[in-house]
C-alpha cells in the first residue's frame, strides 16, 4: 500500500493511504484526546474531543474522521483547540455524574477509599464500579476544568437493571456510540441502536424493550467496549481492574471459542472475546456464564472419603488411593461416565482407565444432563450390576446415586447426589487447568492453566494419571479421533436458543439466576427465607431520598419506646444476612415505628434497600450504643452539627434533641453534588441555620463540612460531625483545638453483635481501645485514629465484593 507524508505539530509522519489524522498522530506519538474513536470501529465523530486545525481547511475538523492527505499540516494543541476541548469536556461531564472531578479533596478521598463503594447506582466516580478502568475518567483526569460553570444534569430514573448480566446506567452514557457500532459490526441483526432525540437520546433496543426481548445474544462486547460505567457486567464489575489476561478455550459447547480471561488475585474475574471481529464473537455462555460458574460459591474445594456413614476430608492422596482400591475390587463391573466437553487428555486417560479396569465407558454429550444417561445404563445401576461407578460430572441424580455401589464423583461444585459417594474429588474446570481442545477446524489447541489451584482442586486428568501411574500404562495407545463439528451445529454465538443449558450435567440456571431471563429453567425453585406470620419487623415505608439513600420506616414498638438521640440498631434483612448498624433517625413511641437512613454501599445495605413496604426485616435489634450526652450543652449555647452522606440523617435526632433543650444549632451538611443533598426541609425545621456544601459547588458553597468547621468552628460551643470516615477525618483536622469545648463524632466501624462481645468494632481513641458499639458511637473527634478505622473497615474488601448480591432488584 502506498504511503503519504504529513506534518503534525511540526513532526513529519509517514502513514499508509487511508489513515486518519488521529491514526497518524498516534503513530507520531502525539496525544490527541478522544473517546468515541476506536481502532476496530468505523469513525463516528461524536465526542468532538479530537478536534484539530489543518492549514487550508475551514473550522476545526475531528481528527478521527479526517483522512490524512499528502502534505497536510496539522496542529493539535492550539489555544483555540484547548478552549474547545475544555468546554466540550465540561459539556460532556455536565451530563455525567462527575462531582468527584470538581472536588478539591478527590485525591485524598481516593487514597482512603481505594475502591469505589459498591452502591446501587453510580452517582459519582466514588460509587462507580468502572472507576478503576474508566476511559472517560482517564481522558478527563487532569484536563477537566469548570470553565462555563454548568450545573449537573442527573436523572435517577435512568438506571436500568432489567436485563440478564448487564447493568445499564444511562446517566453515565456519553453517547459515544461504541456499543452500537460494536453490535452492528458483530451481529447480522444488531440488538441495540440509539433511540430518541437530543437529551432523550439513549442506547436502546427496539422501542426501549428489555434487550432480552430483542435480538440481543448477550455476547457482552458492548460492555467491554463501553468507555464509561454505563454498560457493566453486573456480576464482575466490582472486582476492579484485572491484573493480567490469559487466553483459553471455552468448553461449554463443541465450538470451543477462544476467550480472554481477566484475572485478578489469582481469580478469574471475567472473560471477553479476543477481538470485535465477527469470527471472534462469543456467546453469553462464554462471556458471562463461564466466570460465574468458575466462581460459584458452592465450588468443591476438598476431597471427601467416606468413613463408615460419614464423608471426611482426607486429602487428595488418600482419596486417590481409595478410588484405586474401589476400582481394583470392582474390576470388570465398573461404569465410567465421562464427558465430551472434557479436555482431550482427560478423555484419553478415561479410555485408558476403562480399558485397564475392564469398565464400561459412557461419554456424555455437551449440554447433557442426568436425564440423558442411556436407559440401559440407568437400569444397570438400579439393578446393581456395577460394583463401582465413577462419574465425572453430575450425571447421577440423587435417587440413582443412592442406588449406585462404590460411587466416585469428580465434580467442581457440591451436589446432593455426592452425599451417596464413597469418594468425592474436587476438579478444576475450563482455563483453571491446562489441556487441549479442538477448534472448529479440528486443529488441536493447547490451553495453559491460568490460575492457581485452591486447596485440593485438581484437573480430572491428574487424578486418573495418579491412579494409572503405578500400572505402567502407555497413554499414547489411547489416542483417538475427536468428533468433527457437525454441519447441523448451531453456534450459540449466533443463535440465542442454542445457548447450552447444562455443563458437566449441571443445570446452569441453578447457579446463574440471570439465565432464567433467557428462558432457562432452574431444576428446583430456590428456597428463600419468608418470615412466618408475626415474625420479623414490618417495613412501613421505603422511600428513596436521593439515589442509593433510602428512608426506611420500620414497625418496632419496643425500640421506639426506648430510643434516644445518637443510638443505633442492628439490622439483618434475611436470616443469612450480615448484621449491620444503622443510626436511629426518628421514632414515635405512640405509633411504634422507627426510621433509618440506609445508604447502599454493599451487600447488606443493598439487600435492605431492595425491600419494599410490607416486606419484613429478619432482625432489628436496638436501641444500642450510648446516647449522645446532651448534658454537656447548656440552653442558649451554640452547637455546630456537621453531616455528610448518611450523616445528614444521623445529625437529625441530635439536632432535634438539642432544639428541645434550647440549644441553638447550626447544621452544615455536605454531599458530592446538588442531586445528593437531602433532608434540607427537615433539618431547617429543627435547627437555627442550615448551611449547604457540595463538593462540586453545584449547590451552596463548594467544599465540605470541614471547611465550615475550620472557618467558623471556634465560634461555637461545640461541634458534632457524622459522616463517612474520610469526612470525619477531615473534620477532625479542622476541629477547634480548645479541648474545653466538646468536639464529637459518631463512628461506624464493622459491627457484629453491637453489645460489646465480639470486638469487631474496636477503635483507637487517644491511647485507649474502645468498642464503638457500647462505649460509643460518640467519641472525641480529635482523638480518634481515623487511619486505623479506615483500614479496619477495608479488611473484608474482597469478600465484600464476592458477597455482592448480583441479581438484586433485577428480577422483578
Amino acid at each position, binding site marked *: 500500500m502506498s504511503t503519504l507524508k504529513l506534518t503534525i505539530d511540526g513532526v513529519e509522519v509517514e502513514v499508509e493511504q487511508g489513515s486518519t489524522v488521529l491514526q497518524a498522530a498516534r503513530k507520531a506519538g502525539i496525544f490527541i484526546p478522544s473517546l468515541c474513536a476506536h481502532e476496530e470501529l468505523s*469513525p*463516528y*465523530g*461524536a*465526542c*468532538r474531543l479530537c*478536534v484539530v486545525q489543518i492549514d487550508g481547511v475551514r*473550522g*476545526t*475538523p*475531528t481528527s478521527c*474522521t*479526517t*483522512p490524512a492527505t499528502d502534505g497536510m499540516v496539522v496542529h493539535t494543541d492550539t489555544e*483555540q483547540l484547548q*478552549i*474547545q476541548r475544555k*468546554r*466540550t469536556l465540561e*459539556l*460532556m461531564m*455536565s*451530563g455525567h455524574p462527575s462531582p468527584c472531578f470538581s472536588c478539591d479533596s478527590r485525591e485524598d478521598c481516593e487514597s482512603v477509599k481505594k475502591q469505589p463503594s459498591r452502591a446501587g447506582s453510580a452517582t459519582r466516580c466514588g460509587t462507580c464500579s468502572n472507576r478503576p478502568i474508566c476511559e472517560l475518567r482517564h481522558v478527563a483526569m487532569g484536563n477537566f476544568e469548570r*470553565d*462555563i*460553570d*454548568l*450545573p449537573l*444534569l442527573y436523572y435517577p430514573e435512568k438506571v436500568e437493571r432489567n436485563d440478564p448480566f448487564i447493568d445499564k446506567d444511562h446517566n453515565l452514557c*456519553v*453517547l459515544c*456510540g461504541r456499543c452500537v457500532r460494536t453490535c452492528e459490526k458483530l451481529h447480522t441483526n444488531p440488538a441495540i*441502536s*440509539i433511540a*430518541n*432525540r*437530543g*437529551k*432523550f*437520546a439513549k442506547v436502546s433496543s427496539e422501542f426501549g424493550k428489555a434487550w432480552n426481548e430483542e435480538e440481543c445474544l448477550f455476547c457482552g462486547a458492548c460492555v467491554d467496549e463501553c468507555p464509561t460505567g454505563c454498560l457493566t457486567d453486573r456480576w464482575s464489575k466490582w472486582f476492579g481492574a484485572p491484573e493480567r489476561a490469559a487466553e483459553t478455550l471455552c468448553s461449554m459447547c463443541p465450538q470451543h471459542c477462544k476467550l480472554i480471561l481477566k484475572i485478578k488475585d489469582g481469580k478469574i474475574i471475567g472473560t471477553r472475546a479476543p477481538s470485535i471481529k465477527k469470527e471472534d464473537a462469543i456467546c453469553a455462555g462464554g462471556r458471562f456464564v463461564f466466570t460465574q460458574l468458575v466462581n460459584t460459591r458452592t465450588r468443591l474445594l476438598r476431597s471427601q472419603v467416606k468413613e463408615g456413614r460419614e464423608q471426611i476430608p482426607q486429602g487428595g492422596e488418600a482419596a486417590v488411593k481409595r478410588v484405586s482400591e474401589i476400582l481394583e475390587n470392582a474390576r470388570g463391573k465398573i461404569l465410567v461416565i465421562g464427558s465430551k466437553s472434557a479436555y482431550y487428555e482427560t478423555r484419553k486417560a478415561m479410555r485408558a482407565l476403562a480399558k485397564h479396569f475392564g469398565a464400561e465407558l459412557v461419554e456424555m454429550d455437551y449440554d447433557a444432563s442426568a436425564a440423558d444417561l442411556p436407559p440401559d445404563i440407568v437400569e444397570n445401576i438400579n439393578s446393581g450390576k456395577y460394583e463401582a461407578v465413577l462419574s465425572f460430572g453430575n450425571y447421577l441424580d440423587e435417587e440413582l446415586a443412592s442406588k449406585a455401589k462404590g460411587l466416585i464423583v469428580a465434580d467442581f461444585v457440591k451436589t446432593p447426589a455426592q452425599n451417596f459417594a464413597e469418594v468425592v474429588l474436587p476438579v478444576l474446570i475450563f482455563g483453571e487447568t491446562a489441556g487441549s481442545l479442538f477448534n472448529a477446524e479440528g486443529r488441536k489447541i493447547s490451553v495453559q492453566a491460568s490460575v492457581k489451584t485452591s486447596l485440593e482442586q485438581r484437573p480430572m486428568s491428574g487424578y486418573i494419571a495418579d491412579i494409572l501411574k503405578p500400572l505402567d500404562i502407555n497413554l499414547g495407545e489411547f489416542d483417538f479421533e475427536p468428533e468433527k463439528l457437525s454441519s447441523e451445529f448451531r453456534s450459540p454465538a449466533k443463535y440465542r436458543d442454542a445457548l447450552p443449558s447444562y455443563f458437566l450435567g449441571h443445570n446452569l440456571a441453578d447457579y446463574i439466576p440471570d439465565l432464567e431471563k433467557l428462558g432457562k429453567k432452574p431444576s428446583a425453585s430456590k428456597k428463600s427465607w419468608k418470615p412466618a406470620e408475626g415474625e420479623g419487623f414490618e417495613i412501613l415505608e421505603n422511600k428513596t431520598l436521593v439515589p442509593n439513600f433510602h428512608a426506611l420506616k420500620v414497625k418496632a414498638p419496643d425500640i421506639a419506646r426506648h430510643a434516644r438521640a445518637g443510638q443505633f440498631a442492628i439490622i439483618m434483612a434475611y436470616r443469612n444476612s450480615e448484621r449491620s448498624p444503622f443510626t436511629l433517625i426518628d421514632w414515635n413511641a405512640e405509633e411504634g415505628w422507627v426510621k433509618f437512613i440506609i445508604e447502599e454501599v454493599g451487600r447488606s445495605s443493598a439487600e435492605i434497600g431492595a425491600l419494599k413496604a410490607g416486606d419484613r426485616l429478619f432482625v432489628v435489634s436496638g436501641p444500642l450504643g450510648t446516647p449522645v450526652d446532651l448534658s454537656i450543652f447548656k440552653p442558649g449555647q451554640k452547637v455546630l452539627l456537621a453531616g455528610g452522606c448518611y450523616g445528614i440523617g444521623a445529625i437529625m435526632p441530635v439536632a432535634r434533641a438539642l432544639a428541645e433543650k434550647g440549644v441553638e444549632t447550626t447544621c452544615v451538611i455536605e454531599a458530592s453534588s446538588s442531586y445528593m443533598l437531602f433532608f434540607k426541609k427537615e433539618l431547617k425545621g429543627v435547627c437555627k441555620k442550615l448551611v449547604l456544601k457540595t463538593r462540586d459547588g453545584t449547590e451552596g458553597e463548594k467544599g465540605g463540612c470541614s471547611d465550615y468547621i475550620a472557618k467558623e468552628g471556634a465560634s461555637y460551643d461545640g461541634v458534632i460531625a457524622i459522616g463517612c470516615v474520610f469526612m470525619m477525618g477531615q473534620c477532625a483536622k479542622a476541629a477547634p483545638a480548645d479541648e474545653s469545648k466538646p468536639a464529637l463524632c459518631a463512628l461506624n466501624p464493622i459491627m457484629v453483635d453491637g453489645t460489646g462481645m465480639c470486638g469487631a468494632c474496636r477503635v483507637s481513641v487517644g491511647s485507649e481501645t474502645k468498642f464503638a458499639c457500647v462505649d460509643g458511637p460518640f467519641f472525641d473527634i480529635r482523638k480518634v485514629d481515623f487511619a486505623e478505622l479506615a483500614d479496619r473497615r477495608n479488611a473484608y474488601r474482597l469478600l465484600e465484593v464476592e458477597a455482592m448480591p448480583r441479581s438484586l432488584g433485577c428480577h422483578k
Partner: protein
Amino acid sequence: MEILKSRRRDAQKVWKEFSDGAKTRILIGAATCGRAAGALDVEKEFAKKLAETGLADSVEIRQTGCIGLCYAEPLVEIKRPGEPSVLYSKVKPADVKKLIDEHIVGGKPVQSKAEAVMSDAEYMGIKPFGEHPMVSLQKRIVLRNCGIIDPTSFEHYLARGGYEGLERALSMSPEEVIKEVLDSGLRGRGGAGFPTGMKWSFARKSNSDTKYIICNADEGDPGAFMDRSVLEGDPHSVIEGIIIAGYATGSNHAYIYCRSEYPLAIERLTLAIKQAEEAGLLKSELPNGFKFDIKIKKGSGAFVCGEETSLMASIEGVRAMPRPKPPFPAVSGLFKKPTNINNVETLAAVSSIMREGAAMYNSLGSEKSKGTKTFSLAGKIARTGLIEVELGTKLGDIINKIGGGCADGKHFKAVQTGGPSGGCLTAEHFDLPVDYENLAAAGSIIGSGGMVVMNEDSCMVEVAKYFVSFTESESCGKCVPCRMGTQHAHKILEKICSGKGEPEDIERLQKIAFTMKQSALCGLGQTAPNPIVTTLRYFKDEYIEHINAKRCPALVCPEMVHFSVAADKCRACGMCARACPTGAASGKPGSPYSIDAQKCISCGACYQACKFGAIVRQ
C-alpha cells in the same frame, strides 16, 4: 422532443380554455395555506350556490396553488369570458352569494372584496395584480406558476414553457448543462448557498454505475413554507429540475425526501410523477439514451433530516444521524453511491434557468448572489405570505414595502431570518441588501428563506429561548456540543426568563455558543446558537434588564409581569374573569374588578380579553 410535440399542441388548447375560455371560471387558492383559512368551505359553498341558481354547468370551479398573499386567504379568482380575472381576498362562505349575484351574474366585480385584477391594466377601478404592494417589487421565477395554473394539470405546466428547459438540456452535453448552471450563478437555496453547478460537477466526476439525485423537501424551519408552496403549486417545475440534474450528473435514480406533514405536496408530487412517467419523461429512455426515475420518500418530520447525511440515512432506513464528511455525498452518498442533493427551490430554479438561459438568471441579483430567492413572511408582519425577490433587495423593502410593516400599527423590533439556524436583524439593517454575504456579515443567514417578524410585544430573550428549545428537541443527540449545549443554553434562557438570571449567565451563553459553533458535528449544532448570538449582539440590554432589574421590557415573561385592573377604565363587564383560567380575576357587576396576585399566573388572558384597556401590565 418528439414525445412532447403533440402534447404541447394539446396543452396550448387546454390552457387557452382554462385561462381565457368560453366558460366563467372560479379559481380557488387551495394550497395548504388557503385550506387552513377555509378555502374548501368556500369552494363547497360556490358549488352549492351555483347548483341552486342553475349555473353549475356554465361555471367551472378549479383549484390552484398559493399565489403568495397568504394573509388574504381564502383567495378566489372569478373570470367571466372575455373579461379579466378578478382576485378576491378573505372570501368567506357568506360572501359567496354576493359574488355570484353581482359578479358572475351581474358582471360587476364586488369592489369591497376585490384585491387585484389579473391583467396588466386597471379594470373597473381595480388595480392590476402587478401593482399590488406585495407584488410590485417581486420577481417571480420559481413562483411564476404558483397560484396561476392548476397544479394537477400537466398541460398547464407544458403550456407555460414547462419541460422546455429539459428539452434544451437534453440537446446539450451534460458538461454543457453544468456550465450553464454554473454561469447562471445559482447557489443552493436550502441554506448553505454552495454553487449548484459546482456541486453537480463533483457528482458528475464520480465514477459509478449508480448515482442518485435527492431532492431535499424536508422543510423544517418554523415559519418557512417556500418549498411546500412550490410543491403544491407547481410540482412539475421541481420534477423537471430533478431530471435535468440527473442528466447533468449522470444519475439514474432520484428520491424526493418530503416530510409527511406535507400531505398535499406529496399528493401533488405523486400525481406529477405519474404524469411525467405517462408522458415518457421518466422510466423511459429519453434521447441520448438517458433513463431516469423518481421515488418519493416520506420523512416523519425530524429537523435534522434536512442535514444531507441524516437525510440519506433516513432514506436508507436507519436512524437519521449526521455522519462526518468526508466522504462527501458526491463521492459516497446514498447507499454508498455518488449522490447529489439539492433543495426544492434550487431544482425549480434550474428548470427556468435551462429554459431561459443562464444570462437571464445571472442578470438578476447582487454581485455574488445571483438570481432570485423566495421568502416566507411570517410573524407579526402585516402581509404574511410567500414572496420571491431578487437577491440584494433591501431588507426594509421586504419588510415594509412588500410585507407592509408590522400588523396593527405596532413597532417593528426584529426579524429572524434563516429559522432556528439563523439570527435576528433589526431596523438598523433595513438598508442591508439581502444576500448571502451581507446577511452572514450581520450574523444571520438567508437559510431556506424564512422571515419571522417580531414587534414591540416580542421579548427577544424569549425568542432566543423559543428557537433554542426547538433545536434542543430536534438535536439528534449524537455529538456532545449540540446535545448538551442546547440543553444548557435552554436552561439558562429559561432561568433568565423566569427572573433568576445571574450576570454570569451571559458569558455562559457566549461560551456555550462558541463551543457549539466550533465543535458541533453538523450544521444543526453549529448554527443552533445563532439566535442567541444575534439577540445578544443586538438586544443585550434586554438580557441585562431581565437579569439585573428582573424585568421583561416587552412584558412577555410571565414571572416578571404583573397584571392589575385600572379601576377608572374598568366597566365591570366580567370578560377578564371569564378568560382567567385560575380565577384570579374576579368582581361583581357595578364595581371595578380586581386580580388576585396570589392566584395570577401571568398568562395574559385577561389582557387579551379586556376591550377597554383596563388591564394593566407592568
